[in-house]
């Protein structure tokens, strides 16, 4: 391991901004996708239930 301290690790040899932005934006995007899918799935279940109720009313 090449890191003497936490601040050295954070600094990334002067490239910290670029390195951490790259990993940060990737983490945010993947997390966003997971959360958006969770919402979409819940909405899809709710939508399916609704159309069932509609069908029931029609019969």
């Amino acid at each position, binding site marked *: 391991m090449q890191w003497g301290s936490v601040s050295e690790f954070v600094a*990334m040899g002067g490239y910290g901004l670029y390195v951490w932005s790259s*990993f940060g934006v990737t983490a945010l995007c*993947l997390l966003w996708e997971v959360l958006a899918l969770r919402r979409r*799935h819940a909405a*899809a279940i709710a939508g*399916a239930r609704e*159309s069932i109720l509609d*069908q029931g009313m029609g019969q």
Partner: protein
Amino acid sequence: MMGLARINWFKYSSPQAFYPLAGRMMPWFAAAATLLIGVGLYIGFFVAPTDFQQGQSYRIIFVHVPAAWMSMFLYVVMAMWAGLGLGLNARPSFMMAQAIAPTGALFTFLALVTGAMWGKPTWGAWWVWDARLTSELILLFLYGGVLLLRASIDDPRRADRASAVFALVGVVNVPIIYFSVRWWNTLHQGASVSMTTAPKMAATMLTAMLVMTLGFWMYSIAVTLVRMRCVILERDRQSSWVTHHSHREAVEVH
């Protein structure tokens, strides 16, 4: 005629069987993705040595290359499902293509953004109109075209066919991206990994990159399975088996 109408044809097609199966498989892929990405990050940041030319900025490779590989790989897989859908007129194949597209677009976006963050300290520019970068940008537009075609056509069957044809035509761009660093004199560096020559990077660097790629792959499968479940529910909400599942899941959620 009445007899035919009464049969629940949907019972015999695969979305019904696939929906619960996807739900059972998803957590395993999600767990594998978490583990692999964790291990990949550990090797990438704590085991892999400093690059003698680029210093620490090279560590962007551990997220940039896996994202770029997934962007191309997912496009090819999406196009294969689209082609299968067109050839067999198989609706579940079109649904698979539909479920893959957004994740492929996301990884293309990430490849471009992390590339810009690597380009700035390395070349002094966020963006250059280099063959590799330009063809990857075209890939983002192709994903955009697939998604827009789907969104703009109301009839799902017509949307399936239109976006499938578009996806298939666009697949020619993938080898162009891959070979761009060889065919043109690009600022972008050559292939990091080659089947024919010995690796140009330290073994631990290569390991971190491959483990991260595997992690992104497992992630892609997990989110595609969830999106497939969404697509199935959204498109088949009129069928009776969806009734059954949505009742049961609503109970589980509350």
